[in-house]
């Protein structure tokens, strides 16, 4: 039997994601890719992968997997790895571990983030579709059969064994929490809103609603009033664009967003703050702050330097950094889990 991770329990919306399918938006193909590309790059660093290598992304609760190969090295973001059996061990996030054949392990509830990641040394032996292993479930493109994982799936591994070496951790893991204010660049259609609406957008607090998935986050808060109607002749959508449909309640467009759309976009979240937005959970509260495009570009350069610094600062995982806890099996599933239905698909032709 070929090297695989067998899926014992699939977790919630567990999909294969890399840094996205770039270059096909003109054909209407969404980019997809990791909601939190910072986490993806950092967990890949822990298992010696290229930063862009595909990993497993899960929402709220990760999968339970079994090693069906000689050995495999993995690392998780925003979630513990619970190694099942005797003795049970718990590996904290941002730390690598080598697991041997037959081992079962579970990715726990995500901590501080809606999404968690499992990087696998050497990656997955899956076809690249239009240059990416990312899963776009709505059109069943890429990843594992174009869909979220199910029980009894076998994820083929590119590397049948992991050599022993000192396991490592990040000495400076990233913070999950969103910045005090999410930075945006106003436009492209901020002039389609009343001045009061733009002022409210930048001053008031918004709460992430339960209508949240990989396509976008619908926000609750003051309704934003359009000044020229809520339909525009369709134009392109950038990731992070904040479109406002007729309800006046904004939607932040995330990884799986449509390439084009017909609602005015009041602003765009800057790319340096998008990973933090990708981590938001229903009920989280956020505020926005406007910056210039040049400031946004500078912030992105700063983020890149920060990621590289964190990825370089890898230190040996200390003895005893594995946590033995009696409460290991007391799972803490998040309540109010969001369904993966097309809750945001009201902008349809």
């Amino acid at each position: 039997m070929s090297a695989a991770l067998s899926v014992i329990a699939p977790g919630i919306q567990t999909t294969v994601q890399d840094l996205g399918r770039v270059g096909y938006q003109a054909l209407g193909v969404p980019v997809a890719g990791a909601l939190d590309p910072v986490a993806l790059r950092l967990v890949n660093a822990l298992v010696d992968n290229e930063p862009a290598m595909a990993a497993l992304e899960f929402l709220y609760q990760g999968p339970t997997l079994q090693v069906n190969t000689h050995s495999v090295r993995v690392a998780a973001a925003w979630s513990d790895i619970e190694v099942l059996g005797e003795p049970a061990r718990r590996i904290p996030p941002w730390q690598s571990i080598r697991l041997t054949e037959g081992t079962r392990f579970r990715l726990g509830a995500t901590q501080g983030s809606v999404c968690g990641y499992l990087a696998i040394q050497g990656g997955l032996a899956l076809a690249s579709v239009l240059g990416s292993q990312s899963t776009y479930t709505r059109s069943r493109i890429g990843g594992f059969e174009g869909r979220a994982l199910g029980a009894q799936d076998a994820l083929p591994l590119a590397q049948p064994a992991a050599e022993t070496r000192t396991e490592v951790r990040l000495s400076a893991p990233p913070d999950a929490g969103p910045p005090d204010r999410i930075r945006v660049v106003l436009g492209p259609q901020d002039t389609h809103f009343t001045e009061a609406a733009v002022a409210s957008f930048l001053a008031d607090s918004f709460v992430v609603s339960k209508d949240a998935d990989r396509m976008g986050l619908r926000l609750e808060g003051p309704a934003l009033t359009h000044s020229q109607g809520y339909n525009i002749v369709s134009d392109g959508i950038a990731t992070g664009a904040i479109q406002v449909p007729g309800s006046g309640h904004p939607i932040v467009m995330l990884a799986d967003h449509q390439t084009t759309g017909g609602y005015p976009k009041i602003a765009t979240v800057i790319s340096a703050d998008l990973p933090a937005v990708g981590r938001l959970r229903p009920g989280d509260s956020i505020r926005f702050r406007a910056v210039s495009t040049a400031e946004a570009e500078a912030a992105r350069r700063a983020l890149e330097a920060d990621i590289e610094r964190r990825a370089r600062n890898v230190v040996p995982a200390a003895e005893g950094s594995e946590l033995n806890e009696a409460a290991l099996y007391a799972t803490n599933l998040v309540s109010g889990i969001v369904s993966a239905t097309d809750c945001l698909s009201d902008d349809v032709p």
Partner: protein
Amino acid sequence: MENSTFTMGSKEQNQATWKLRFLPSGDTALTVELGETVERRLSAAVVDLAARIDGAALAGVVEIVPTFRSLLVHYDPLVTSAAALTEQIGVLSKAGTGGQTDGRKWRIPACYEGDLAPDLDEVAERTGLSPAQVIEQHTAAAYHVYMLGFLPGYPYMGDLPDSLQLPRRKSPRVRVPAGSVAIATGLTAVYTYESPGGWHLIGRTPILFFDLRRDPPALLRPGDSVSFEAVSRETYDRLAAEVANGNFELATETAA
């Protein structure tokens, strides 16, 4: 932001002048807007400018998405900037001849019968036409592909004859079958995947408008010309089987 004007290079096309507006879309994309309407001359100018930018291979440009009336230029902010692109695209819009817009002509078989055409009778009723007249008018026109979006390969095409124009359905369907031929406002389209949708479904085509076995996977591109040909249910079923087996290839001719 700085604005400039853009004159179409090709003489055959109208010498329309479009005012370029550069609209901020964050730090990884720049909107280049030429207008705010749906019309063929504007679409031709969009396609032309997209070809110019593509041909110039500007550093840091990741991809270009043409729409009815604008381009979204996706870029890598670690390589270039919105300010640099604004200047470069401004120059490209003025200089030299336009890119080639070699639109192709397509003839798409579609069945306008029975369960494949769930809204045909309602469209007929609301437009005051007979179902046969709806089919006749939908198949008589040659449609311009304005843009692809919404779903992979989904073509926004126009213009629909005035007599067939209806607003979108009040409440969208949760599931529109793949291959559905649809109309709404001045446009017609084909749903490339099963999806939610609010347009009126008047037929079904067996042709795959998006197929990962093809390169490029999208059948159409902006600037192409499409007309529909009514086929019987029997022909539809035969073609659908051939398409499923990979034994069917649709012929095209390059537009004059």
